[in-house]
């Protein structure tokens, strides 16, 4: 097993490269295309965000990367390359070896992702025994150190505790400890703080920032919260109804959103630092109103910038002039903010 010494190679080759990913679920009422034409890449040490609301396909994308989708009901197509190797061409066994050791995931709800009847020490230790071939005793010692690293005081004494004995923030720390046990080079965090209180969220985000920065670990952050993205991620991909609608580095994305959906999201969130009394500008309708991409732009029914073309032709994700070199900047819109044709 490879142990990571220094992942920050001078060469900025992508660690994870996803091209034209599509995920189709076979259901009893026909096929559902949950994700399509999703492309993004993550370099070592980079923090990338996939932002979207419920149904945007952001979680399905991350599960496809991890190889955690049911093989019988979900058809994954496109290419997912990790460190140059095509993950979709690998056997289940090969992917299992990567998962946990090379790439790890933190889920939203720590209560449902931890086993309630197994002590936390065993749950952390099992990753180490599986991937690092440690003995039980070694794994136990290492687990205690890991708990200390994620900020659980007295870590080695708490290894015998069960998930229900811990608070929500503590459980999330245990999940992070499990994810980081083998020093993965890619960490996917799916709404890691959504179930937590805001002061605990600040603790966990700070912890993630601390653990990930400087080690060269690449982070993919899946979230609906643009506030979380603003402080943590370099590159942002905004998703709507299964496709990426806008990609940009965070500064231009927040300062000058081009897609009407991105702009609409930013205008509809109450900001703590904005002067009070300004009415919010909501996006009309709900994510359920999305059209099929085959018929036009899925966001068209809710879009204030809609023109005739939007409901008759499907917009492509077009690369834009890169604002900062090395970042991806792309837009899927016929009538973007700032360049309205009508």
């Amino acid at each position, binding site marked *: 097993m490879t142990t990571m010494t220094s992942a920050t190679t001078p060469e900025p080759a992508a660690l994870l490269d996803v091209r034209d990913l599509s995920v189709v679920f076979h259901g009893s009422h026909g096929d559902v295309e949950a994700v399509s034409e999703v492309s993004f890449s993550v370099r070592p040490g980079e923090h990338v965000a996939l932002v979207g609301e419920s149904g945007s396909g952001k979680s399905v994308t991350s599960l496809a990367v991890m190889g955690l989708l049911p093989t019988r009901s979900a058809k994954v197509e496109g290419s997912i390359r990790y460190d140059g190797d095509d993950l979709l061409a690998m056997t289940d066994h090969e992917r299992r070896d990567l998962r946990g050791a090379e790439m790890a995931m933190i889920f939203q709800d720590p209560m449902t992702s931890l086993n309630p009847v197994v002590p936390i020490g065993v749950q952390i230790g099992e990753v180490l025994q599986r991937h690092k071939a440690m003995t039980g005793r070694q794994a136990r010692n290492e687990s205690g150190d890991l708990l200390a690293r994620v900020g659980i005081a007295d870590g080695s004494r708490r290894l015998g505790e069960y998930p229900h004995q811990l608070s929500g923030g503590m459980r999330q720390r245990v999940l992070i400890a499990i994810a980081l046990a083998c020093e993965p080079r890619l960490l996917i965090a799916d709404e890691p703080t959504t179930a937590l209180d805001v002061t605990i969220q600040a603790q966990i985000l700070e912890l993630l920032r601390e653990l990930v920065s400087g080690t060269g670990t690449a982070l993919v952050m899946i979230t609906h919260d643009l506030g979380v993205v603003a402080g943590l991620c370099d590159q942002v991909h905004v998703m709507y109804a299964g496709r990426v609608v806008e990609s940009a580095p965070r500064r231009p994305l927040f300062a000058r959103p081009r897609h009407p959906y991105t702009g609409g999201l930013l205008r509809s969130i109450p900001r703590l630092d904005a002067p009070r009394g300004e009415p919010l500008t*909501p996006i009309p309708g709900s994510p359920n109103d999305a059209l099929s991409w085959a018929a036009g732009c899925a966001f068209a029914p809710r879009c204030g910038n809609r023109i005739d073309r939007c409901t008759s032709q499907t917009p492509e994700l077009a690369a834009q002039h890169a604002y900062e070199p090395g970042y991806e900047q792309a837009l899927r819109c016929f009538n973007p903010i700032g360049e309205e044709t009508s």
Partner: protein
Amino acid sequence: MNPEVSGGRDEVLLRVRGLKVHFPITRGIVLQRTVGHVQAVDGVDLDVRRGQTMGLVGESGSGKSTLGRGILRLGVPLTAGTVEYDGVDIASLRGEQLRRQRSAMQMVFQDPMASLNPRQSVENLITEPMRAHGKPVDTTTVARLLELVGLPRSAALRYPHEFSGGQRQRLGIARAIGLEPALVIADEPVSALDVSVQAQVLNLLEELQQRLGLTYLVIAHDLAVVRHVSDDVAVMYLGGIVEQAGSDDLYRSPLHPYTRALMSAVPVPDPEVEDRRQRILLRGDIPSPAAPPTGCRFHTRCPYRQQTRCDDERPVLRELRPGHRVACHFAEEIDSGAIQPAEAAQMVGTAPASP
């Protein structure tokens, strides 16, 4: 001593004094012994003025929802204190009197899917409260209510599952306003909704307030949401109010260390702001309300904790500035910079420490 809200310029519709809600913890199956109490709400004073919005913000376990339900007497037995609504003490009402009183005070719940009966049509759902209180109902009532909450008339014959989350919350609001209440208590009205839909519901609440002259008590964990809709904001921590002020005042100059930490923890969707701001990271979790800390309940996590007084004496809410009340022994010293945070507190961010 209960300091009155300054000025008295507006009429107080809801006056809560010394409200306590303690839930017994019992042990044993046949002979149940009470072995302790969860002090969910422990001594809350609150004034809500007519036509205004009071925001109640706090994290999980702060007792904010229990306080809301306690005011309405919704399945929550009051341990002590008074709740005066329009001059009537509802804490002492029983049975039919209480039921009648409730038509003037309605509630909007967090999860519209769980609070709407899936087997009832919309028409049935939104007229049920009116029928229960013997108010006349006809077809125009339903149409008018649907119009008020921004739903089409055709919605009347449909069922909850046919609606999106935002539309269901509109139905929940229609149910609440059908009885023409003066006071509406909204418990986390938008936290179950998608981000792009939250603003629709917040705007609807504001619009209804203007059209119908409603008084709101909005309970939420999201400080940005609460600040946006509220005239006054009360911050709760472990069963008590630690700070209460006008919405802008609270944001501009928070006085309680908890409010400061809470405010600094809320992420702002703006990289320029996020990169510059300083965060006060609180250590640990909110303690259990079954065994709250002695003295100031925040002292176990407070970066400004001072020896012995904070541990021994529980601070009362006192008015530091007109309309701005805070429950902290050392609020003035912290505000002036005379007391600096202990090193134990983690301050992160690039900005220099400002007093």
